[in-house]
């Protein structure tokens, strides 16, 4: 699109679009092409829509600006495209504001917006990364369907090869700004040539053999009949019963809004439960944070989804990791310094990182620091809230392996909150599936992953993209048949 962010420029080369050179194209030429003939769908629809305007006004802005149609014909067009994208109530949904529709619907509304001028090319920049699996399917199906219908070329940028497998005809693998491999999609998936591509493909197949059965271990956390609500009227969580044993990983699965993170807030004391009790190491845990003693706080640690906001940007790594040591274990001076270095070694970061600030670390390294901060307190239970979903696959895999190694070494338990079932398959001992604030299925991994499933578990499981180019088509066909039957 010959557009660069401030601070970046296109140094050399050529961008030919329909015989026109865009590289040094005039502003008016670029303006006439952008939106009208090349459109863009961003990663986060929530951040890309203007929250102050209705969807349909934002839809119509492009075509009206480019003098392709007037507002009322753009409105009609919007309804057609909303309908084709299977948005509910296509006649009226456009008159809502961005915050009034769900994440998946908003992402589809954005695809619709990109289609408004019927462009020749649409650039999709990770449009499903921020969505959970069940919504991801809807958006993928919509994208696939509409690009086919309008015969639009699409450039799909993603780090998820399984998603690409569903959509792409050709795949280009990039690394450090260089082309690694380019080939027909089916060929790349079947027979990758380069080492890096193989690595990317192999991520999905990593297992935890040799993990012992931990069902006989002592119970660390025991949640009994817990309900909680934010407003006091409507329960966000109802009757949660959950046990976590020493050295065990319990995965809490469910889509956004199912109450997973709320449960974490209840356990940590940020949101007192309205009913039920929580036993931590056989002692009742105060519902509120304030009355909890330091020992309880120390033994229960948390790792967040976004390492960027979980680390104070003005603290050095020394201070971040050192503070819990000082606070809980009264370590100071040389003893603390030594322990910080040990922890850095455990999380596989070099010792000279101790004087760095978080901004000088990559996302994966930051998440490692978060792990070290939790470990510094010598906890019995770590709550991991979507710890890998902000990271790309290879980095996420590294984090998961690290967590598992640490568990084997230190016998720490994890409550692993995630919507990513691949992660769950990789590391969980037990799985708890949540929907609308209730646990609908729970048990050892093997039992949950083996059919017969609860209806919802089945939906979740079948929604995880596979590396098979025909998987999406087959799945949709199956679901249509099932719905018809």
């Amino acid at each position, binding site marked *: 699109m010959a557009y660069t962010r401030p*601070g970046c420029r296109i140094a050399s080369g050529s961008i030919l679009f329909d015989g026109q050179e865009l590289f040094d194209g005039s502003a008016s030429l670029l303006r006439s092409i952008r939106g009208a003939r090349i459109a863009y769908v961003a990663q986060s629809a929530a951040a890309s829509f203007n929250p102050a305007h209705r969807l349909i006004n934002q839809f119509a802005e492009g075509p009206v600006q480019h003098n392709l149609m007037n507002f009322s014909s753009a409105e009609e067009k919007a309804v057609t495209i909303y309908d084709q994208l299977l948005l509910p109530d296509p006649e009226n949904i456009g008159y809502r504001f961005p915050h009034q529709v769900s994440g998946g619907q908003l992402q589809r509304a954005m695809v619709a917006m990109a289609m408004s001028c019927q462009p020749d090319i649409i650039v999709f920049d990770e449009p499903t990364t921020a969505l959970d699996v069940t919504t991801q399917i809807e958006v993928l199906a919509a994208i696939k369907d509409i690009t086919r219908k309008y015969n639009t070329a699409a450039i799909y940028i993603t780090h998820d090869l399984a998603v690409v497998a569903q959509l792409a005809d050709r795949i280009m693998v990039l690394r450090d700004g260089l082309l690694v491999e380019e080939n027909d999609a089916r060929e790349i998936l079947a027979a990758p040539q380069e080492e890096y591509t193989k690595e990317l493909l192999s991520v999905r197949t990593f297992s935890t053999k040799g993990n012992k059965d931990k069902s006989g271990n002592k119970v660390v956390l025991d949640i009994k009949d817990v309900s909680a609500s934010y407003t006091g009227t409507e329960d966000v969580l109802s009757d949660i019963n959950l046990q976590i044993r020493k050295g065990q990983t319990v995965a809490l699965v469910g889509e956004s809004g199912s109450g997973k993170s709320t449960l974490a807030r209840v356990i*940590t*004391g*940020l949101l007192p439960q309205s009913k039920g009790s929580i036993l931590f190491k056989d002692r009742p845990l105060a519902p509120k*944070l304030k009355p*909890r003693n*330091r020992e309880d*706080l120390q033994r229960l*640690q*948390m790792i*967040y989804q*976004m390492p960027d*906001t*979980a*680390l*104070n*940007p*003005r*603290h050095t790594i020394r201070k971040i990791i050192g*503070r*819990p040591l000082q*606070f*809980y274990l009264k370590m100071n001076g040389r003893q603390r310094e030594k322990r910080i270095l040990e922890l850095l070694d455990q999380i596989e970061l070099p010792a000279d990182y101790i004087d760095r600030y978080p901004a000088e670390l990559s996302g994966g390294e930051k998440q490692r620091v978060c792990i070290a*901060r939790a470990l510094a*307190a010598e906890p019995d239970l770590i709550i991991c809230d979507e710890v890998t979903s902000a990271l790309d696959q290879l980095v996420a895999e590294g984090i998961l392996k690290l967590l598992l190694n640490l568990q084997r070494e230190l016998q720490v338990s994890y409550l692993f909150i995630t919507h990513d079932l691949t992660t769950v398959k990789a590391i969980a001992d037990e799985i708890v599936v949540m929907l609308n604030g209730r646990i609908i299925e729970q048990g050892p991994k093997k039992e949950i992953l083996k059919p017969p499933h609860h209806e919802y578990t089945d939906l979740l499981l079948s929604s995880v993209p596979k590396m098979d180019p025909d998987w999406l088509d087959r799945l949709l066909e199956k679901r249509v048949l099932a719905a018809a039957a």
Partner: protein
Amino acid sequence: MITLLSHLRTAPWSAKIGMGMVLLTLIAAVFAPLIAPFGETEIAGDVWLFSSSTHFLGTDSLGRDMFSRLLYGARNTIAIAFLITFLSFVVGVTLGFVAATIGGWADQLLSRMIDILMAFPTLIFALMVLSVVGTSIPALIIVIALLDSTRVFRLSRAVAMDIEVMEYVEAARLRGEKLWWIMRHEILPNAMPPLVAEFGLRFCFVFLFIAALSFLGLGIQPPAADWGGMVRENAGAITFGIFTPLWPAAAIAFLTVGVNLIVDWALHVASGLKD
């Protein structure tokens, strides 16, 4: 401290000029007795003389040396303005952070109290209080500092509220940290850039406010020299085409511009924009 020094080195030329201007005024203030050819209140010659070799900037309405009084005036004005700004920040930032970090009733109570204080026009409120308690310098400092801290409270509360929702603050709460630690270690370092910028700005305002009060006769009392008061004493001269009152006015403008050049740069750094 080290990062601050490295920042100083990379400062743009405008900020460096500003720093030079402020430094110059500070030197003048500190070394006033050494530089000044005459005493602060010494009557050295005729009334309203023009510049000459003995009276560098001429003399004022009582025949005192203008240049010497400017130097001594820098002492009074800058020291008091700095003290006031500093006090108002200590009070405003602490209360603002407390309101943002505790939230709920504490926030309501503090914010409403501040609202009441802010409902009065500052100058009128200051005039009223000062005419009741008398115009001593400590009273001046405390009254203006308190009035100014309401603005600081507003800013620091808003800044702290943005920081307070970050997960690292939540992590500190979950760790069991006390209020003071969270304010001092988690919030303050991240709120520093806007607060520093505001400090420079408020310093100027306080400075002008004292000048205004002095002009109205409620600020620093004669015969002590202060820039605002000097403008007032000599204001009449302007009608005779004598530009003596312009010197202290120029000094006020000089320092204000200097501080603002630095503030501009501090704001730029605080916004996190890269050139």
